[in-house]
């Protein structure tokens, strides 16, 4: 585990607030790096950047100089290496000497997505995740919420269609084109769509 210097990375509450992560004690140099990294987008979903996704966690002074902290989404997400390389490349292009540090804890949650990320996902055709992914921490919710409303087991999450806004949708598959998405179909406009799974 990397040593934790910033108040954000060192804090213990399980759910971190949404929104930009710049800290009041950040120096001007830190702010410049935050600004610079606004251009680094998610390789799978190019309409959102890493800050908006909650992947970019901190810019801080480490023992070996400046560090940019990112956190992985899914354990096996193949885009993580690309994100790390993209951040490093953006820093190098701007001539900033900083290392990219990957930090596992606290575990990334879709609750960290910013409101603008959620809007951008929706207009891109991906329904953003329902809130409170962390509420499932006791494991019971897994069994309780069933995929198909017709299965008659539990109560399914209401997922609105990003195309027409209808709540009359059904899950086609628990898993979609990437680890972070499920596949849904709107029963109103009949369009299939991706749903970003609460995580």
């Amino acid at each position, binding site marked *: 585990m990397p040593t934790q210097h910033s108040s954000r990375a060192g804090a213990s509450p399980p759910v971190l607030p949404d929104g930009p992560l710049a800290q009041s004690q950040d120096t001007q140099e830190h702010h410049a790096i935050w600004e610079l990294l606004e251009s680094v987008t998610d390789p799978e979903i190019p309409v959102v950047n890493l800050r908006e996704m909650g992947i970019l966690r901190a810019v801080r002074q480490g023992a070996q100089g400046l560090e940019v902290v990112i956190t992985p989404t899914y354990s*096996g*997400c193949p885009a993580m290496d690309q994100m790390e390389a993209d951040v490093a490349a953006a820093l190098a292009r701007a001539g900033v000497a900083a290392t990219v540090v990957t930090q*596992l*804890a606290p575990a990334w949650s879709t609750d960290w997505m910013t409101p603008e990320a959620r809007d951008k996902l929706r207009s891109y055709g991906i329904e953003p995740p329902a809130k409170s992914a962390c509420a499932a921490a006791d494991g019971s919710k*897994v069994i309780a919420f069933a995929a198909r409303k017709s299965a008659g087991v539990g109560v399914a999450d209401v997922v609105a269609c990003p195309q027409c806004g209808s709540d009359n949708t059904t899950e086609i598959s628990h*898993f979609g084109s990437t680890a972070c998405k499920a596949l849904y179909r709107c029963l109103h406009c009949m369009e299939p769509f991706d749903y970003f799974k609460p995580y």
Partner: protein
Amino acid sequence: MASYQDYLLHLADNALILGQRNAEWCGHGPILEEDLALANNALDLIGQARMLYQYVAALRKDGKTTEDLLVYFRDVPDFKNYTLVELPHSTAMLPTASGDRDYGVTMTRNFLYSALMVQVWQALEHSSDAQLAAIAAKSRKEAQYHLRHAHDWVLRLGNGTEESHRRMQAAFDYLMPFTQEFWTDSAMETAAAKSGAGVDVRAFKAEWEATAADTLQAATLKLPSSDGFVTTGKHGVHSEHLGFVLAEMQSLARAHPQAAW
């Protein structure tokens, strides 16, 4: 401390071998959506395994252990996974061809394993080892989703046609005895639990059994006996199947050691 690394390898090997098995469905899924589902499931499991192998490699501090070395250059007796996760996707106790894969067996195993791991990872979030706790926090969310997926298929197939019902019952009858291994003792688990870094899996037995019983009942399946021979995969004594899994998984890396791409 070697014993604690064994414990981490036990967790990693379970995830890796089941990930490798589930990845066998890639390109062969019964329907496109499930093909994608199993590829994603395998990706999560192999991702969990990688975090654990990377951690073991870091703990060894010998300058040569890497995640690749642990995965590609250990042999059958070095692997500490449950025998359950290395079995082919078939109830036949015979050498199997790829065409013999039975999705019911795959879903049953994913159900039995993820129902346990949801509890294990949840408890390990409170591990005295901060790195293991961090890995557990990520893995727990993924295990929950895998449980949800497998649970849904157990219900669907159990409540499905006569044929799907028969095959699901056969899958549970076949796999249930392998779950006895969960509750047996091992030095690595005992030591890890005692230190506060690991957990005693036996504490989860009652809840796991209740989940299995509830699900089987909802799926109109009979809860089979889990008596009989107790497997010993976590002690490194495996079924004949693990060698074949490793042969496929390791052959490329062993044919081209040091290769980079």
